[in-house]
């Protein structure tokens, strides 16, 4: 029964939803090789793939697929709540992306092309290895949680993707340049490793971002209990 459920969850969004993260990281690896041959150090580029691009692509995929179920009306009549089904799918996607990121992170360490933030460079090796995983884990959880919450709030897959993309580009273009003069923006900096590697607030901002992501989950849980809203979401697109 559990296997059937997982198999349905796997088939529902289509193969591309699961193939996109490994394909994306594979493309980053190929471009990194190309950059290396051009004489450009690929460490920062690879770090941006893990920290900036994988989270946003997962956020868009979650926003598009997690709330889309052709059998939604049927699901809502079942004794198992749809909220738990949707959260299970969310965990499924996040877990898959985390596996790809962990594997990529391991390969990056193996080839000595890491780009660790300055704050953790003097830490002991095991602590550094653990902290390095926060480079991708925190933005990944944030984008996945935000994508999920936004798709429930806006009841639109494209609107949530557009908002995630806007947040991503604004963070990327503007925040790195003004963060020194506006310290109160530090808790919302999603990509400090790539954009401000020398930042002294790296760890504190990671914890604050993680906290905001975790706060989005109960909000999503409450929104998932709004059956009327879920049904309207299907017809409003």
């Amino acid at each position, binding site marked *: 029964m559990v296997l059937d459920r997982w198999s349905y969850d796997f088939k529902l969004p289509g193969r591309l939803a699961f193939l996109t993260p490994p394909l994306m990281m594979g493309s980053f690896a190929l471009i990194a090789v190309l950059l290396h041959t051009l004489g450009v150090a690929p460490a920062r580029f690879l770090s941006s793939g893990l920290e900036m691009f994988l989270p946003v692509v997962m956020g868009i995929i979650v926003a598009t697929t997690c709330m889309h179920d052709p059998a939604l009306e049927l699901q809502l009549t079942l004794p198992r709540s749809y909220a738990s089904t949707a959260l299970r799918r969310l965990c499924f996607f996040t877990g898959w992306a985390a596996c790809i990121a962990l594997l990529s992170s391991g390969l990056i360490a193996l080839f000595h092309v890491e780009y660790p933030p300055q704050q953790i460079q003097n830490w002991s090796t095991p602590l550094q290895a653990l902290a390095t995983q926060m480079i991708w884990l925190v933005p990944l959880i944030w984008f996945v949680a935000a994508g999920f919450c936004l798709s429930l709030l806006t009841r*639109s897959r*494209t609107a949530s993707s557009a908002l995630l993309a*806007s947040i991503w580009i604004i963070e990327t273009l*503007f925040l790195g340049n003004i963060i020194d003069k506006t310290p109160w923006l530090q808790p919302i900096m999603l990509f400090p490793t790539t954009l401000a590697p020398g930042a002294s607030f790296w760890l504190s901002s990671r914890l604050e971002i993680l906290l905001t992501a975790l706060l989005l989950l109960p909000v999503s849980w409450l929104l998932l209990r709004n059956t009327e809203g879920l049904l309207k979401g299907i017809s409003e*697109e």
Partner: protein
Amino acid sequence: MMNLSVFAGAFNYEFRMQVRRPIIWIVQFLTTLLVAGFISRSAGILDMLIHLQSVAILESVVYWTNFMNYVLPIAAGILIADRLPRDQRTKVQELLTTTSASLRARLFGKYLGCTLATWLPICLLYCLGICFIFVQTGNLMVLPLALETFATIVLPCMFFVGAFSIAIPAILWVPLYQFLFLGYWFWGNLYAPKSIPTISATLLTPAGGYMSQGFFGVTMFHATHATAFQGVESFVLLLILSMLIMLALSSYLLWQQTRH
């Protein structure tokens, strides 16, 4: 005559359908709010806004037009991307195929209707900014200049982004296109040419750096040495590519129809 009425019908319907989606307005409003919030923290831009009277009118109008092409087309492109797959999902495509209406005329109507409706919030924001510059400077020259910059910088970007966002999702999964479009806009338009090779300083930049620098001598993009001739080249290239991609899309859909 028949094709024209099909085009007008499709345009009308798609425009009204898209413009009535509250999310189009909400997303562009929130994006503008976020960009304005971050930009207001940048010292140079804030100073320029405060001392607008001392800045040349041409410069302030061109910068405002460039700002329209900076981040907002990303949200617009993503919002247009689901229009064609939606027809397939709701089976409207099959229904329309049974009518005698020309597919090409219908597709062009859809393209222009969707694109113009999605750009309407951006156009209104543009007008608001121009009104602000006009009130601050009191110079009537702002209005013809604004029309000129809009036609040469915003319109090619709008047609290019609209065409690609309608056409590519016909062959690519929508979320993947949305992600790739975001990546493309950042890398191909806004990323400064440094260590990683980029096309952001070439003629093929819908953000409009070449038109902006070539025609008006001012730009916030990476085309600081563009000439007027290169501006014309970039303008024509973007429009031709938009038309070609739409023609390719209609041929692809016709081929799909005959195959089925």
